[in-house]
């Protein structure tokens, strides 16, 4: 196999990796906010159930969760899972990361000074206005470094898709490496992941800088 075909094959795998990454991020970031609200719910039942699910999602291997999401429908309902591979990955990653994001958001929201709520209340803002205009923008700024950490981890965690035999860059590099008896595919994969995370870090840093107009 020439180095060109190898790069080309792995490049197409990298596109699939990016697909998992972007979709998982798009779903998990807002879903995390929903989970955060459920966790903070005044209804004890809702908040306890949410707390339990967060603890399971954080307390078991993501690899295992992916297996359950993928094979679950077949074992439980005998459904055909032929077209379920990619959706199962997105569901698994999104829900797992939402659990982490929820706790990060919660920390951010709870670190807000009570005075911000009181000032908004006296000025007559509704609860919704207070959250979206006053609280959330400040929370986003506060949690950004922690969110960046998770996003970088997600880039690398996409490699777990190989457990469901999804042909992303890590699976492909493994196959080429064993076929060609070569370490080069792993090195290439490493470079791909590193470059992707370099871009992620760069973008997140830009966002952080843009939010630096106040303290």
């Amino acid at each position: 196999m020439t180095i060109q075909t190898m790069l080309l094959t792995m490049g197409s795998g990298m596109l699939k990796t990016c697909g998992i990454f972007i979709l998982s991020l798009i779903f998990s970031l807002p879903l995390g906010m929903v989970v955060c609200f459920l966790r903070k719910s005044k209804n004890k039942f809702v908040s306890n159930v949410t707390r339990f699910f967060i603890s399971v999602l954080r307390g078991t291997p993501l690899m295992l969760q992916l297996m359950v999401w993928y094979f679950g429908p077949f074992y439980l309902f005998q459904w055909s899972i032929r077209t379920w591979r990619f959706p199962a990955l997105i569901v698994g990653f999104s829900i797992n990361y939402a659990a982490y994001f929820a706790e990060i958001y919660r920390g951010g929201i709870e670190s807000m000074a009570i005075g911000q709520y009181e000032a908004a209340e006296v000025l007559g803002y509704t609860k919704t206005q207070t959250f979206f205009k006053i609280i959330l923008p400040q929370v986003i700024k506060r949690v950004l470094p922690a969110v960046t950490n998770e996003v970088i981890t997600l880039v690398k965690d996409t490699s777990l898709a190989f457990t469901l035999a999804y042909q992303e860059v890590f699976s492909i590099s493994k196959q080429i490496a064993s076929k060609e008896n070569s370490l080069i595919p792993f090195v290439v994969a490493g470079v791909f992941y590193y470059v992707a995370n370099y871009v992620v870090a760069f973008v997140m840093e830009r966002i952080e800088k843009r939010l630096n107009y106040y303290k």
Partner: protein
Amino acid sequence: MNILTMKNIEKSFGDLQVIKNVSLSVDNGEVVSIIGPSGSGKSTLLRCATFLETIDSGLIKYEDKIAVQNDENGVARYVPQKELKNIKRVFGLVFQQFNLFPHFSVIKNVTDAPISVQKRNKDEVKEEAMGILKKMGLEDKADAYPYQLSGGQQQRVAIARALAMNPDILFFDEPTSALDPELTGEVLKVIRQLADEKMTMVVVTHEMPFARAVSDRVIFIDGGVIVEEGDPEIVLGNPTKERTKQFLKNYQR
């Protein structure tokens, strides 16, 4: 007419009763100062008046609108949220810690609530806000962010923010207590200016000379009860109650 009427207010935190049967009314154009040692309940009283704390028993009325009164069992019942929201328009509150919105510029801090809460015209609000900022000596700070301002400037922005809502009565909760001594003057000057314009105000403060100069009435609170109230010259200059004398003596030391 009384703008604020509070009658027989009772408030406890758990087993600790912090307000004991306090009644207080504030007339239109009146400036009332509330003094007292820390933990005396003066801030709590202000927080009850602005609905940041709920009272256990008693009556609170703004102008002729009742916000809360006792039911037949003597337990305070608030009017529905919607009515309460209408009543809230009557007053403004300036906090000890300013509580400006750090992500809003000065002008946005002042204009956002009139625009997004009161739904008033943007240009009109902005023009009025610039006028208020000018009065506060802050017209050149309109585009600054709170962190770029001194404490005294931040507190003046907070006063401007409250004024932009056109309240009929303005509460101050120890407005200078979080400031360096050299910055208290500029905030007190602004409050004094408002007093000259006949703004109705209730000020919880530790600044005795200020209270004496500005107030129409001074209230001394200790242990959750009003110990003495009346003309500032009398309460602060020649109090009749032993507890007031003691407090003022400790204060001067």
